[in-house]
């Protein structure tokens, strides 16, 4: 039953994340955090963090991580398989029938609206990650976030990282390693965290 749920959940994530890169993030958050409570928001932020520093697409990384958590190795394999199953069916059908996919008016039209929508969905998931990492207790709900509960070290890390990325376009891995290292020192010095 659990395996079936895992499969179905990640099948939907695979089927509805269109546009590559971060497009799967909002769907993973919805299925894994909000719907099934397999991960807390804190765990989810950690999975995204780990995904940035390990090879492979975020969706596959999340599938393996959640699968391991819920049902060990069989869970990881089932969730990963669920995640790639829609790709296999759709991409291979296109290859098999050799569809002139690019020129289909319907596909083009759908993508015209999907591209900007995906930007907003990523923005929304990114905002909940931001709010969760700026809260002092790494709580699950950012609604409870008040000024005295704000983690100022995280605010400084976020703003510095953002400015560095905008200005110099460096590899994101270095920003994350940097904020991890600087964060550790800052938290130990301020006795926070």
């Amino acid at each position, binding site marked *: 039953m659990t395996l079936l749920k895992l499969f179905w959940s990640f099948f939907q994530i695979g089927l509805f994340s269109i546009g590559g890169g971060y497009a799967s993030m909002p769907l993973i958050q919805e299925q894994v955090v909000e719907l099934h409570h397999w991960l807390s928001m804190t765990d989810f932020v950690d999975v995204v963090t780990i995904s*940035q520093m390990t090879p492979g697409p975020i969706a596959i990384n999340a599938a393996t991580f959640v699968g391991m958590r819920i049902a060990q190795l069989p869970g990881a394999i089932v969730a990963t398989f669920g995640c790639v199953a829609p790709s296999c069916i759709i*991409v291979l059908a296109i290859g098999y029938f050799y569809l002139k996919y690019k020129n289909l008016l319907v596909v083009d039209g759908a993508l015209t609206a999907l591209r900007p929508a995906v930007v907003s969905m990523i923005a929304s998931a990114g905002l909940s990650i931001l709010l969760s990492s700026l809260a002092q207790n790494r709580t699950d709900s950012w609604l409870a976030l008040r000024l005295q509960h704000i983690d100022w070290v995280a605010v400084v890390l976020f*703003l510095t990282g953002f400015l560095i*990325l905008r200005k110099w376009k460096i590899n994101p891995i270095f920003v994350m390693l940097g904020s991890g290292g600087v964060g550790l020192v800052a938290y130990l010095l301020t006795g926070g965290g």
Partner: protein
Amino acid sequence: MNHDFRFFCKLFLSTFSLSAFTFGGGYVIIPLMRKKFVEQYNWISEEEMLDFTAISQSTPGAMAVNASLLVGYRLAGFFGAFVTLVATVLPPLLILSVVALFYQAFQDNRLVNLVLKGMGAGVAAVIADVVVTMARDVVSARNLFQIAVMLLTFVAVFVFEVNAILVVLVCAAVGILYALLLKGRKRGQEH
């Protein structure tokens, strides 16, 4: 091309190493695949690679998975696609399984938690950077329809917490209607 055992080994190993050394996922893997399969091995043409990129960008699922399925299928049919699929999925599957085990063991460690907390702020910065770039691209295209879709979707998802799958379905439908409408109007002007 001779599809012997050595060919499939080469296909598996090259796809595996591409997947194992592509960090962060997303578009990064496409230029690397091009270098390997087009320039180095001469297995597929430049034009095919462009087609594969367009298809894997606009079909559901992870780009790396879609692109390698297409390369495998093109080179050796369904079995080729199976080989490249397994080779693409295996590195993240293995690495994240190990990470998940360690994560459970280190979850309560204070120092690990502090590092992850700092990295969380870094990840938020990385995503913010990506979102700003993507949103700027949409705005600078000056397509009012796309800008409207972007704003409405944001309100729907962030403020009203509308289901993400529903948003994808509705946007796809609206986009198709919009394209048909434009085409109809263009035809009307011609007559």
